[in-house]
């Protein structure tokens, strides 16, 4: 299968520090990449670079076979979507207006949002449990509801490749797993996805692949089971985890127990 996004020899720097060196990666349709690493390891910087909103200090990115910087911004936004870590709302007032912003790259400059656009947005809101919230004012939403609105905006954008920076922030436990299931369903339907996570167990259960950053320019990438080992996680986080098997599924738990 050909790559949606191909990353060649990517170097990332932030504040004079090298975060990532010589990253080569290919995100294919149907792959769900978990992006793990300690705070400040460069997860956000990487996602913003892959989304084309930040220039890499070195290296090349290709959307299919076209160099990413050469892609017109609007075309790029039709294919690649980014959920930022602290998605701040604009001056919009209602939930529907805010989510409609996701359709921006699909609406021509002098056109209005069509009924088709509105249908897509309403479906996206429903997928994120915001059905019936359409006319609610933004300031009346809770933190978790805001996060789901940001996710709905990304779903409304309907990109082939979804890049999500800590999509589970502010979500309650049930919604964390529900959103993960939905994202996984999207990849199973042929989209590509990369999301930054803090819980290796979630990556273990939902991601097909994992990219693990250790914050000192080295990285491990590959199939989830191959990358997520106690040793790799210890190298990345400096924290011991043990894999516990239970009824055919496996979970990482702290070792020794912190209590």
């Amino acid at each position: 299968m050909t790559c949606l996004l191909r990353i060649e020899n990517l170097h990332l720097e932030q504040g004079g520090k090298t975060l990532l060196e010589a990253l080569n990666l290919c995100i294919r349709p149907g792959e769900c990449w978990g992006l793990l690493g300690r705070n400040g390891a460069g997860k956000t910087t990487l996602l913003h670079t892959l989304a084309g909103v930040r220039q890499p200090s070195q290296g090349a990115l290709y959307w299919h076979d076209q160099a990413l910087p050469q892609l017109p911004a609007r075309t790029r936004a039709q294919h690649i979507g980014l959920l930022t870590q602290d998605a701040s709302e604009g001056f919009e007032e209602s939930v529907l207006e805010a989510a409609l912003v996701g359709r921006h790259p699909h609406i021509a400059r002098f056109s209005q949002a069509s009924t088709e656009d509105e249908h897509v947005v309403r479906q996206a809101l429903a997928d994120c449990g915001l059905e019936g919230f359409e006319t609610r004012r933004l300031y009346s939403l809770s933190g978790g509801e805001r996060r789901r609105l940001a996710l709905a905006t990304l779903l409304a954008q309907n990109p082939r490749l979804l890049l999500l920076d800590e999509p589970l922030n502010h979500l309650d436990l049930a919604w964390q797993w529900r959103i993960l299931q939905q994202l996984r369903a999207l990849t199973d339907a042929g989209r590509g996805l990369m999301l930054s996570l803090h819980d290796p167990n979630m990556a273990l259960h939902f991601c097909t692949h994992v990219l693990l950053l250790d914050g000192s320019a080295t990285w491990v990438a590959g199939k989830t089971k191959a990358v997520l080992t106690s040793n790799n996680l210890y190298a990345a986080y400096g924290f011991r985890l043990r894999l516990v098997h239970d009824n055919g599924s496996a979970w990482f738990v702290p070792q020794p127990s912190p209590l």
Partner: protein
Amino acid sequence: MPRPLSPWITLGLLLAAGIGLFCSSLFLGSTGWLWPSPNHPDTHAILFELRLPRVLAAFTAGALLALAGSLIQVLTRNPLADPYILGISGGAAVGALLAILFGLALWLQHVFATVGALAALLLVIALAHGEGAWTRQRLLLTGVVLASALGAIITLLLALAPDTALRSMLFWLMGDLSSAPAPWLALGGLALLFLLLMPWTRDLNVLTRGEASAASLGVAVRELRWGAYLLAAIATALAVITAGSIGFVGLLAPHLARLLVGADHRVALPAAMLLGANLVMLADLCARTLIAPQQLPAGALLALIGAPLFLALLYREGRR
């Protein structure tokens, strides 16, 4: 969003009010209703040489400041920002006051004001130049600090000025539409800025969500930001040269527009411009008719009319 009126009806009403105010300003004056008494020998001169340029200046200055204020509030993502925050009006004021102090001719006052506005603008952009998340705050702070420094210079100029010049200096500072230069030119500038900006209004909506999000949604953030700063600065400079210091309208009109028609700039921007134009026309009409033949400073009346209107709408919004 359930608003009492659809945005298009609100825009239509604002336009109708604008036409009404425009006609009233033409026909109403210190001599009472001039219409229908077209036989008076001075009628033509009063209408076309005194009142028409003046009402055009009021319309243009109000609309320009509203446009600039809307842009600056989006760019800085700060609801307290107004077009004067970049120090442009301070620069223009120092230029104009110097010209008045030296007793220069009227046209030189305008030249000095223009040069002052452009100098302040270039200084802010040069000092705040840079990239990254800090740029927005740095620009705001640079503008605020420069504006305070220019304010101090204005105070010094006022303190040093002889009594003969003081009165016209104060009037300039309070907003004076009686000596507007070339309002047709400013009107042309207004039309041009509006046409340049309208195709980008939806991008402005997206830009209010922050730069990374806007960029990921296909907005050319860098180009849009600098273009919008430039347009806002040109609009402010044109307005200040046309009407002196009436900056309050640049803070007020964008907020009023958002309260009336919502935050979508495709509607909110024209609404803000009409509101700004109407407010300044109304203020100027009151300024020259309330205790005619004496004239009041339009800028002061603008604040007296605008502040209660704004507070009333804000209060209504808070109770919804």
